[in-house]
């Protein structure tokens, strides 16, 4: 007689060690787990609420400067080191881990206009109001040694910005013209001019390194090619562009921070129309920096706030502000994609989390899985009204709030007027210009 005996494989229910979790056999039959949408919705709602509860982005403030901070530079090799230049010509090097200043040097008389590190991280360059370009060692001087720059180049005009090539010992300064310098020489390799204007910032493309972008005070953005030592194209906007930043993952994209409160993301091959206009600031945008993943960027504004925009979205996903933070002049996204640094008028550098509700420190795998799940749920239900309302809610200072409201009204009025004008004039005589094209005055070849 054959007897059937109930037998189970002990591997299914026996733990290997005591520390293991108890194995819980699960039956995935959907009939046993009803109301999946409703349950997941509730989870998503809770996750969204918790995200807002835990959104505490401010990490630290680095104080020590005796004047407003004018520029910040990241160390290319060390995540914990940053450099900052102030309006009194002082440069400080900070350790972010210990949140202390590790070195102070009086680099210039007057403003430190621009600062950049060499690609290897051994030295850095500063330009200042005293018409000099100085190269400094990253390490401090040994005991008894004087604090002196490695090289000093005395120019004829004030330099307003500097950027270093990402690979070669070449750097570019801007002022009356864009100069490209070899590190070994005291005269520029070539000077690039196109019209007479003062150029406020110049940036090397991090991917196609021979490309340069600059923005001048006559409202234009000019692109240069270093190989052929020629300008490429110029786009003139409504108002002046303060800075631009190249996307580190997509070679042809750059974002320009404009005085008209907006940021414009351009594809450099199609300059006649920006890919996206990012609007949310209520005052001039002073600085912009891309996240190293190239998916988002952070912008600093005169309205005392910084905002984080996704590259493909017209509205910001996050706004950071504190009572004490004044006009934010410069902003940087750290190279590990985790933090944001901003330097402002009131002499402080602030360190923010790039993701406001992110948990810092060690995360165990289960926690991580739960976080991923919550993230996914938030994404899945993001369009539902309650969840959207909670996730979008931000507290704003009164002046930003009221100004935003005012501007909304103004924009609406303008739109209405335009529509009315179109309605009451001969068909075709008042063309409908898209918002994206409206801000482009001309593209010059």
């Amino acid at each position, binding site marked *: 007689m054959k007897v059937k005996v109930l037998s189970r494989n002990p591997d299914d229910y026996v733990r290997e060690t005591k520390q293991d979790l108890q194995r819980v056999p699960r039956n995935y039959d959907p009939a046993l787990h009803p109301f999946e949408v409703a*349950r*997941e919705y509730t989870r998503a709602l809770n996750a969204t609420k918790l995200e807002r509860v835990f959104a505490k982005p401010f990490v630290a403030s680095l104080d020590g400067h005796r004047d407003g901070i004018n520029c910040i530079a990241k160390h290319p090799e060390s995540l914990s080191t940053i450099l900052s230049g102030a309006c009194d010509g002082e440069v400080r090097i900070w350790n972010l881990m210990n949140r202390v200043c590790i070195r102070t040097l009086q680099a210039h008389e007057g403003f430190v206009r621009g600062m950049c590190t060499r690609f290897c991280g051994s030295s850095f360059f500063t330009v200042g109001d005293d018409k000099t370009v100085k190269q400094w060692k990253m390490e401090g001087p040994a005991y008894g040694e004087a604090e002196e720059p490695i090289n000093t180049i005395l120019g004829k005009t004030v330099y307003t910005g500097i950027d270093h090539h990402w690979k070669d010992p070449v750097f570019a300064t801007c002022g009356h013209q864009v100069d490209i310098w070899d590190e070994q020489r005291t005269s520029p390799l070539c000077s690039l001019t196109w019209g007479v204007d003062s150029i406020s910032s110049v940036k090397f493309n991090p991917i196609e390194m021979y490309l340069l972008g600059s923005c001048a005070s006559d409202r234009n953005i000019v692109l240069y090619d270093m190989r052929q030592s020629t300008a490429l194209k110029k786009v003139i906007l409504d108002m002046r562009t303060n800075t631009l930043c190249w996307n580190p993952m997509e070679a042809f994209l750059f974002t320009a921070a404009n005085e008209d409160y907006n940021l414009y993301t351009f594809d450099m091959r199609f300059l006649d129309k920006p890919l996206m206009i990012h609007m949310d600031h209520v005052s001039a945008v002073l600085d912009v920096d891309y996240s190293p993943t190239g998916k988002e960027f952070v912008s600093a504004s005169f309205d005392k706030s910084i905002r984080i925009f996704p590259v493909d979205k017209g509205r910001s996903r996050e706004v950071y502000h504190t009572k004490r933070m004044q006009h934010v002049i410069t902003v940087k996204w750290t190279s590990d994609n985790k933090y944001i640094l901003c330097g402002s008028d009131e002499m402080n550098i602030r360190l923010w989390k790039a993701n406001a509700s992110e948990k810092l420190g060690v995360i165990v795998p289960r926690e991580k899985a739960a976080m*991923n799940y919550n993230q996914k749920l938030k994404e899945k239900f993001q369009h539902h009204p309650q969840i959207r309302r909670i996730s979008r809610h931000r507290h704003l200072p009164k002046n930003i709030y009221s100004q935003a409201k005012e501007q909304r009204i103004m924009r609406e009025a303008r739109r209405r007027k335009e529509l009315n004008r179109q309605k009451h004039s001969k068909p075709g005589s008042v063309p409908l210009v898209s918002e994206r094209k409206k801000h482009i005055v001309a593209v010059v*070849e």
Partner: protein
Amino acid sequence: MAAAEEDEPILSGPEEEEEAGDEEAAKRHRQLVDTLSTLSGGKRLRATERTEASRQISEFDVGGGADEKVVLSELLKPASASPALRRLRKQLNKAQQKKAVKLPLSKEENERVVREAAYTQTAQDLAKWDPVVRQNRRAEQLVFPLQQESVTVAPVEEVISSWQARTPLEQEIFSLLHKTQQPIKDPLLTPYEKASLQAMSLEEAQLRRMELQRARALQSYYEAKARRKGKIKSKKYHKVLRKGKSRKVLQEFEMLQKSNPEAALEQLEKIEKARIEERMSLKHQNKGRWAKSTVLMAKYNLEARQAMQEQLARNKELTEKVLLESDNEDGGNNSDAEGGLIPDVVNDGHIGMNPDNPWMLGKTCANPKEDIPAQANDSEESDGEEVPLQSLMESEQGQQGSSELQGPGEEETIPMLPDVLPPAPPSPAPEEPFLKETLDRLHTLEDVEALEPEIASQEDRTSSSKEAVLLEPAEAKSSLQAKGAPDLSQATSKAGKKKPAKRKALIDLKAVLAEAPQAVKCPLVPSVVQDEFDADTDQRRVIQEAFANDNVMADFMKEKRRAEEASKPKAVDLVLPGWGEWGGTGLRPSSKKKKWFFIKPAPQTQRKDKHLPHVILSEQRNILAAGYQVNQLPFPFENSQQFERSIQAPVGPTWNTQRAFQRLTAPRVVTQPGHIIRPITAEDANLPSQKDKTDGARKKPDLRLATSPRKGRPHYSAKKKKR
């Protein structure tokens, strides 16, 4: 003019001889002029005269004299002469026909052209990133940093060579190492070792090597053998092996006892120790996998039973605490030890129970009276289940007692029971749960009926409760077994006939509209043979029965009427007596005013469910639901179905397997903490390397520089000018 000259050589082609004469004349003429000029006394430069044949047209001095013009026709004379140079002549002809070169472009224009060209070229260069960008944007997951740094292992020598001993401790250690001349690099042999190796003679070394080889070979054989043996799965083989081993040990022990009592004592101690270890461990405790399986097998298999018993005995033997020899009872000790092997409980058990039952071996029966009937009952059943069953039996007995106590009370609640129910089946066991469960169910049904306020007279209630009572055991029985007596089926059919008649009286005929009431077959008692499928239909019938009294249809109609009424637009009466009129008692607002302030309802639109008798369609917007509804189709979705589907697919671990869950919730962008993310490079994107491109790009500007040589480095040129 050039064209005219061009013509000349062609014309002069045939008159070559004539020309020679002309030349002679010209020469004479020149000589004459010269002599005349010398006579006049002026200093004149004279062409050096040569007496060679080609004096006039030399390769160094083209024009004979200063006054003479170079004529193209003269130059081209040889070309016209030789047919090999015809091509050249043609080209010259063409060149003659071309127009003059245009003026060079202005500086600004020139720059613009250069810019345009450079821009188009750069745009083309950038186009190579398009696929990369597209791919990255679409990627399910991006892991940053893109360039995963590989960990390189530096050789030890390198690390050491750069390292220097600084602290005194390190220096001391180093000095020691150097004293013994410890090698750092391969081969790891000190000089002494090397010397000793060298000192060994060749034969010795060979012998030694052979020995080593043999040893190694043997080792590998044994290893292979052991592995092979280890892989043998046969339990019998292992059993035999184990037994053989133990026998061997025993034999040796006996041998030792005879030959060397001291060694035997030691051996004994060893055995004792092994026993103690065994006792400490949990082997032979019936807890292993084998034991458990054997317990199940033991019911059917004599061998298994025996094996089980054996193991238990062994356990008993091992776990028996051996009295120390220091105890005073020496003579009794022996007998105890013998008895220890087989516990007396076993002997007890042998009297009344199955001797093969291993479970009864270890137990001391406190109350044999209880045990014996249990034994009798369970003799058929499996041995493994005995212990739980025993307790169950006890509880059952308790229940029996209680049910007996409750008996009369229950009969009051079910007076009809004996009428409907056939004589009980012979086996008494199922009857007990039957009674017990009904009580509970009755209670719940009453509850259910209490929820419906309108109907349900006292009679109905009793009847329905009866039905429920009757139905319940039916279910229970069908699920339990189908052993019932054959006359049961007859009883059910009888009951089935009775039922519909009653039911018809209960259900409101009007309420059920035109539909004929279905005769509900009520399987009161299970038929003899029931399929598994019947259970489902049974269930449905039971529910039908239970809720038979509800006037569902009537309720629905009422509800629908109410909904219709509610949705009708209502007239609003805004008449306020006393406004604009004299006040006082008994005064009524004027009819005009009434007319004026009475707002008539708008004509009602046809309801959508007018022709659907079984549906209520509410046309009101549900505000409560609005909070959960997305009112606009979100961007990437093309239609609402797509979006709904995306919402309906759950991602949680409750509905998905672990793997699927991980895949579904994988984040779009992964960054590693503490890693610097650098901009993408051509190597990351597997594009052709940057160098080739830049080289190619550098070549082109060279060509361009040829057209505008000043373009290259304006700064330098400016400096040169200054100097």
